[in-house]
């Protein structure tokens, strides 16, 4: 029997689209969404869709991965400071370890996160971050 279907399902908006919330009293933005504002203790919120753009705040590379993620090892994880404020922890993708640098521009993409129970189970999708280097790549394409 497939496990974890309901908990995965409840998180889908957050995971696929980077939807957090914004405090209606002080405008502070949160991801993941909060029940009580960390800034003003307010309790009224609207949901808020983050742009998915930010900067790399810190990172590390995992060589032996936790259960369910072995297939992707080695891979890097990072803290991304979103342009709207919050820090998000996420897996990094489409990037080699030696390309990573603090302060690098990053953008959110939706990718496979893990597969439950191997090839038989649910495929879990969610946000990851990759290097946002559109201008650099444009120069490469012209060469």
């Amino acid at each position: 029997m497939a496990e974890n279907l309901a908990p995965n399902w409840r998180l889908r908006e957050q995971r696929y689209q980077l939807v957090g919330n914004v405090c209606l009293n002080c405008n502070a933005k949160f991801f993941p969404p909060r029940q009580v504002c960390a800034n003003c203790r307010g309790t009224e919120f609207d949901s808020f869709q983050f742009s998915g753009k930010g900067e790399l705040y810190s990172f590390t590379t995992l060589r032996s991965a936790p259960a369910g993620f072995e297939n992707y090892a080695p891979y890097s994880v990072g803290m991304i400071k979103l342009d709207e404020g919050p820090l998000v922890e996420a897996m990094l993708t489409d990037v080699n370890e030696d390309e990573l640098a603090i302060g690098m521009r990053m953008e959110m993409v939706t990718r496979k996160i893990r597969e439950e129970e191997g090839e038989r189970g649910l495929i879990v999708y969610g946000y990851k971050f990759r290097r946002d280097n559109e201008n650099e790549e444009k120069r490469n394409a012209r060469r």
Partner: protein
Amino acid sequence: MNQVMKPKREVGIIGYGAYVPRYRIKAHEIARVWGGAEDALPIDEKAVPGLDEDTITMSIEAARNALARAQIDAQQLRAVWVGSESHPYAVKPSSTLVAEALGASGAVLAGDWQFACKAGTEAMQAAIALVGSEMADYALAIGMDTAQGRPHDALEYTAGAGGAAYILGPAENALAVLEASYSYVTDTPDFFRRAYQHYPEHGNRFTGEPAYFDHTLTATQNFLELMNYTPRDFHYVVLHQPNVKFPLQAAQQLGFTRDQVIHGLLVGKIGNTYAGASLIGMTNVLDNAKAGDRILLVSFGSGAGSDVFSYIVTEKILERRDLAKRTAFYLGRRELIDYARYARFRNKLVMN
């Protein structure tokens, strides 16, 4: 009996977006491993999806690009249709997950389309009908694939990854207006994959003449005749591209020049992207076209059939095309991998 299809309400492309994964493997690297002839390779290199990519994730990114250009809210979409032969689940639609990730879920049609390499343009035909009948204002049609060829099979050289997404809507908001479309199919067993099989079967020499050429040429010639057009009436032609040779040869037989084909011919750099192949050729043409250009789009899918579309580019292309990443961005974003890394990425240890 009217064989050319025209919607009651005028319809066009409101937004479009491409996607190609970052990794590439050279055809000569595949030839090196299997001892193939390196002088007659069908393409230069092909795109390979990363370990965390599949038709769903790739469709999401192409569709986000299309939404950015369309400048509409995802909730305005009434259809999210994904054409592919590499849906990640055998049972469970790709399209519902794509819709959810775009913020389009709720009051929306969603479905996965299947017709080998024609699945994407079949979804486009349906999107045109939905909008043209005024049942809906906006519909999203995607053609996307992460095609697989059995190790050492001829298809392994060309089976690439990528595709494109199109938002169809009313012509007054379009960056390219549809003139008409056409479809031509017969039962031709040139290529197939049975349930539970990992890799497809194909008829080798049979795939060329009776399949690709017969359907592509017949469909295009019939359409031109019915519309009273000649190849000179078009600035660009985009054909399905299983390799570099077939579309160039078909275009020549139809009377198109190399210049008309070349902007929409990406297979040499990304491989055959199956349901995505003609549609991503079209995104590169739209990235480079100017208002007034007439574009002929012709798909081909094994089984077999071709869809034909004629679009005329509008002034709106100028303000929209830089609202998302261009096709050239994805072509320029490339990291070469060797066969060992490729085998790991594509789970090639499965040999049957």
